[in-house]
């Protein structure tokens, strides 16, 4: 059964961080594994198997999405941005800058997902209240920071515009 599954493949065309990719993937392959294993973009992390932690959050056609909950095949034709594409060392995204300035990370494992979730959130709500920020992080878990400095990081980015 699983052998048959393993042998069938689906062609996909996906643009990731501005680069077009064509690949043939297992129908069951999760998008996060396409990004990590096929493309080698290991900044997107896996922290659970129940879509709870949000460490794998990316932008799929502009929306923050948990890439462990999407099949690669479902992303055919879409445009993706990962943590590797959101800013550069010289020009950090304001949310990246906020995380650095406000000590919004400790171990850094949840951080890429947090940054991607926060960046998408600020696109829809550029001037959020503290409560709105905390609500927006509903799908992203951090075990190190107690969240306060993550909230401050997002407030920093919002102020920066």
């Amino acid at each position, binding site marked *: 059964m699983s052998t048959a599954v*393993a042998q069938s493949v689906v062609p996909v065309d996906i643009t990731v961080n501005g680069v077009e990719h064509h690949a043939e993937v297992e129908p069951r392959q999760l998008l996060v594994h396409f990004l990590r294993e096929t493309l080698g973009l290991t900044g997107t*992390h896996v922290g659970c198997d129940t879509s709870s932690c949000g460490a794998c959050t990316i932008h799929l056609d502009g929306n923050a999405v948990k890439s462990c909950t999407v099949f690669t095949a479902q992303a055919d034709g879409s445009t993706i941005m990962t943590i590797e594409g959101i800013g550069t060392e010289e020009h950090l995204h304001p949310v990246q800058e906020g995380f*650095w300035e406000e000590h919004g990370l400790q171990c850094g*494992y949840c951080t890429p997902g947090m940054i991607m979730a926060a960046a998408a959130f600020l696109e829809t709500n550029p001037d959020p209240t503290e409560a709105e920020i905390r*609500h927006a992080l509903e799908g992203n878990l951090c075990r190190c920071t107690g969240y*306060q400095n993550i909230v401050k990081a997002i407030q920093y980015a919002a102020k920066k515009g």
Partner: protein
Amino acid sequence: MVASIDAPEKMIGKAIKRREDPRLISGAGQFIDDLRLPGMLHLGLVRSPYAHAKIKSIDLSPALAMPGVVAAYTGDDFMDLNPLPAAWQAGGVKNNAVTPRVLAVNEVHLAGDPVAVVVAEDQYLARDAAQAVVVDYEPLPVVVDGKKAAEAGAPQLHEEAPNNIVLEWSCGKDVDAIDHALADAEVTSSLHIINQRLIPTPIEPRGSIARYDPGTGDYTLWITSQAPHVMRLLIAAFVMGIPEQKIRTISPDIGGGFGSKIFCYYDMPLTMAISKKLGGRPIKFFEDRMENYVSTTHGRDHITDVEVGATRDGKITALKVQTWANIGAYFSTIAAGIPTTLYGRMISGCYKIPNIRVDVTATYTNTAMVDAYRGAGRPEAAYVIERVCDAVAAATGVDPAEVRRKNFIQPEDFPYDTGVGMLPYDSGNYEGALDKALAQVGYQELRAEQKRRIDAGEQKLLGIGLSSYVEVCGVAPSKWIGLPGEGWGAGLWESANIRVQLTGKTVITTGSLPHGQGHETTFAQLASDKLGIPYDDIQIKHSDSLGTPFGFGSYGSRSLTVGGTAIYKSTDKIIDKVKKLGAHMLEASEQDVEFEDGKVFVKGSPDAAKTIQEIALAAHVAYDLPEGMEPFLDETTYYDPPNCTFPFGTHVCVVEVDKESGEIDLVKYLAVDDVGNVINPLIVGGQLHGGIAQGLAQALYEGACYDDDGQLLTGSLTDYAIPKARQVPWYELDSTVTPSPVNPMGAKGAGEAGTIASTPAVANAVVDAVRHLGVDNIQMPMTPERIWVAMNESN
């Protein structure tokens, strides 16, 4: 030339941004799951669905028949590997230590016990193949409760541990003395406390990658470990029986640990042994979250009965504590030290208590192993004594703040021996921290508001919770904690090497290592000020047994107090040599020169100075060294502290409890912590925030649940409630500063303080809100349902 080099900026005490962050915010961190080795194979573990069963047969052939499967093994294939080590057995008592093998043989003792392993070309195939293995089990009776496990008739886990008892340990006065003291007390009270089982839950699960080199017989092992040097030692000496130098251990970036990544786990030697069997192909194991929850260590899980005696005015005269500590299915690496040394010997808290007795019975059950989790014994102790203070307040009618004040150890009492076998507390001003907290929070006004709401019959009740804590960090010296004393099977020193290279650029290698705490930043700040070398010119290297001196790892808030002191002492040695060589270059005698801000000069003539960079160049080229001096600036220190350090403080939590629904609102959280002198306040603040969040989550949200068959009901992140952003309050931090006399920085440690302090602060606040309704105890997590039941039962 000399005058143009200004003294570098002072770095100690500055809240500078972390140098670790650029890579971590850009996706360039290198966690174990990010490593790609050519030819790497993946493991799929076959795990027992039963919590206790005999293994009747294992059929690997369906897995082996699958394309892409390279090999499959059972426990019988690894009988040349010894069971994992029991590195900390409690001192002075018999330990019935039964540790796991890499794969269970004959019998499983918890649901999730690995019984077989398949090796496949990719992770999907490894999982498919693991599911194809057929195992026949004969289920056996199960026990999951740490107290029931020791009762007559309970299912027996291990022949070596009659009645499932791992150890029986006690400290303090003898039973007669404590019973007399209780009988003589003017007021007595008792509490039944369940310090529930927690799951540490670093967001990165655990993993190992091993590569055997058939040419040299050497292994490289990448591990998510807080103690890579210790793992190398334990696996070499105790599990595999090979020389340590045959193994190189590397901890890459680690996605949090909280204690759960200290220990020696099955996958470490298993990946190594399989890599050897398969001719050196790299072997990878990386847990998924469910595997992490069932088979990586848990924390806490105490059942405790407390009796306390006091005077009518609230002075505690006697404390008797009986605890059952559930350590799970097997003895994890340092499991025995947690409920003994780190719990019983800290039970006195900040208080002078003339009569204390603690009895601990540790037991095996059909559950995941329990070992150190952030705070490790100290949160359990702080929870007991801080709940007791509120119980004494309730029994005597004395305000909870005053009960604490009356019983505090006073500043002039240090060093203070609590009489239960802990080393003397180093320094403290407990009342100072309490007073600051009470003033900051407006304690009297809050009490008045609490009373007003009760009198007015309002629906939202106010609760004010205090927690005056003291904890023990940087546990040492080795002669006390080690085998002759508390039973830790090694030392607890740390090491550091400093090399100031030809250009003045400096490399510090340390046996300490971070898993989120920012050592690369803090250690460089420390060394920069000491050496007068710019911060940006100092690099901290760590986490690789090849190229760093031996260290015992990062846990117990010991990195700065022990590892940092090793760096400090190495800077002293560098400065000694720099002064000698500088004097030689200045044609002065060593007695006539001074070292300041990275420069050596003749006393009174700072303008004609030699910089440490110039001296490093001279030491390296070695054209003109004083007679007998070795070239190069290279110094190493192995540092074993004379005592532990004891951070303290007072946390105040204010909650609103809805009288109708039991719902809780965290209204205010104030922490006044004294962690001694601070090198980077930004990092220390972050440690306190995260610690507070974990501790309050124990009070309100988290708890691992097993059913009677030993199935973990909270086996995923949808079931186990680590807090979300909207479930934690805004933390207000304040501090007092009482330097530790134990180390030259005066630092005390900050990694666990928040967790230790916050659980009782929040729990006391909730009970305080409903105490007037006749409620004197609620077990954690204090969910709205439990609060509602408590309020209604008491009515």
